[in-house]
């Protein structure tokens, strides 16, 4: 059995998205900037995609910029706010300790250039506290950027409330909605969002396309100079096939949220309950305020990479926040931010589900996981020490 339970890493492109994309390669292959009919055919598809995406986030088409993905959108949002802030002498930026690196690394870079940074605690449950956010805001705060849902532990932040506080204080608010888009409802007006990032491949669209939403009236700083594409704010010939695929996938995902969410959530809860039956396993992140498909646990006494390899051996694809899977010697900053000690963070396992997963698959995972854990623990000196210590 092959089980893909790594949908937070990327998803399988849906048939709807693929069907929408295919004509863009050999039929509507023109450059949308070309005035001739083949170019204009592509331009029409691009415009339709922009209208679709805008419609599903409650924005105007002119407020939607297409980018290469979530990382680029995050970078551009933060740089845009930093440039605007610096012009008015505002050089304070507020975010959280467990943002995606596309946000954190951009902020750290600005910090080196003289900006001041406040990273909010996300506590054991992986949630920002509104009063702490409010207390962090200063007259010179240029931006608040808080992710809608976390990519590792799936916790959902009170975006609308954060947006309201920012509005009241006159501070720009950006949210990295890469994990949320297509899985949780988004309405930039209702949720008081000034800027938002999303990425196509997290909701069954293709890789290489994303959206940078910017509310009308905010002067955008471009990261890529060149042609006049995307109103001159993002040069480079548009990736029409990927953008068209993204719009189709986004429409499909949003149209089916109401139907899919309870189904995926039921699978998630069954998986969480089953895994927590094992000895010395903890759920990372708040149980209720989490993405419908996110399961993230720490299995004490074992290391994540060896667990992933063993799971892969029986056909199960998951992910871990252990150092060994990150290519560095430190475990995930997200798990450390919610207060896990290193050895517990090293033993994390993320299984992220979507509408393609089935109950049989959950049963299979729950059948295969315990003996693998048992086996790794039987050769773990850390586990032995833990058991002897009791």
């Amino acid at each position: 059995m092959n089980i893909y339970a790594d949908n937070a890493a990327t998803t399988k492109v849906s048939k709807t998205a693929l069907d929408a994309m295919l004509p863009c390669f050999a039929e509507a292959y023109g450059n949308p900037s070309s005035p001739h009919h083949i170019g204009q055919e592509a331009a029409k598809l691009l415009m339709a995609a922009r209208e679709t995406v805008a419609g599903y986030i409650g924005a105007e088409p002119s407020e939607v910029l297409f980018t290469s993905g979530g990382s680029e959108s995050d970078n551009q949002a933060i740089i845009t706010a930093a440039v605007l802030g610096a012009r008015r002498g505002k050089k304070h930026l507020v975010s959280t300790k467990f943002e995606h690196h596309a946000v954190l690394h951009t902020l750290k870079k600005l910090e080196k250039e003289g900006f001041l940074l406040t990273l909010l605690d996300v506590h054991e449950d992986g949630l920002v506290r509104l009063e702490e956010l409010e207390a962090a805001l200063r007259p010179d705060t240029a931006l608040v950027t808080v992710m809608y849902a976390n990519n590792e532990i799936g916790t959902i932040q009170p975006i609308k409330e954060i947006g309201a506080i920012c509005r009241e204080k006159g501070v720009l608010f950006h949210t990295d909605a890469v994990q949320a888009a297509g899985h949780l409802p988004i309405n930039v007006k209702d949720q008081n969002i000034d800027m938002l990032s999303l990425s196509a491949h997290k909701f069954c669209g293709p890789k290489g396309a994303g959206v940078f939403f910017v509310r009308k009236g905010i002067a955008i700083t471009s990261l890529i100079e060149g042609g006049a594409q995307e109103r001159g704010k993002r040069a480079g010939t548009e990736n029409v096939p990927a953008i068209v695929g993204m719009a189709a996938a986004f429409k499909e995902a949003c149209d089916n949220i109401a139907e899919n969410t309870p189904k995926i959530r039921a699978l998630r809860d069954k998986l969480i309950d089953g895994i927590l039956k094992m000895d010395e396993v903890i759920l990372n992140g708040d149980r209720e305020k989490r993405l419908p498909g996110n399961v993230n646990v720490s299995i004490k006494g074992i290391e994540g990479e060896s667990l992933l390899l063993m799971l892969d051996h029986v056909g199960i694809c998951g992910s871990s926040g252990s150092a060994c899977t990150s290519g560095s010697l430190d475990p995930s900053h997200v798990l450390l931010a919610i207060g896990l000690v290193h050895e517990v963070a090293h033993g994390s396992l993320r299984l992220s589900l979507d509408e393609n997963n089935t109950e049989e698959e959950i049963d299979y995972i729950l059948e295969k996981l315990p003996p693998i854990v048992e086996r790794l623990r039987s050769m773990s000196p850390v586990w032995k020490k833990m058991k002897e210590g009791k």
Partner: protein
Amino acid sequence: MMMYSEKVMDHFTNPRNVGEIDGASGVGEVGNAKCGDIMKIFLKIDDDGVITDVKFNTFGCGAAIATSSMATEMIKGKHIEDAMKLTNKAVAQALDGLPPVKLHCSVLAEEGVRTALLDYFTRRGEEMPEEYKPRHEDCDACFI
């Protein structure tokens, strides 16, 4: 993430010499949970200085388990004079190489064996040759 060689996967999925030895002649534990790897090696050494049995317990990634398995295989039945000379390079080579970020696991295996041997020498009130002593607590070893 880089792919492991078939040999690494073989030693990871079917690790040799897993376990502990009661009344071991020498025991060595290296690494720390902070870095994500801990290796404990048990040696049984006879009166002639031959390693008659060796076992390990490891908390760590695929490479950590595979290097533990390979290192114990390489010193089993060997005289301590030869076992002392086991290097991390030899372990990595025997596994058909390791991804660069995983080389520290082979260092851990070398250190584990040498630490267990040091314990053996110490218990006997003997001095282990300086050049083969583990470098111990030398976290920089992880970054070579």
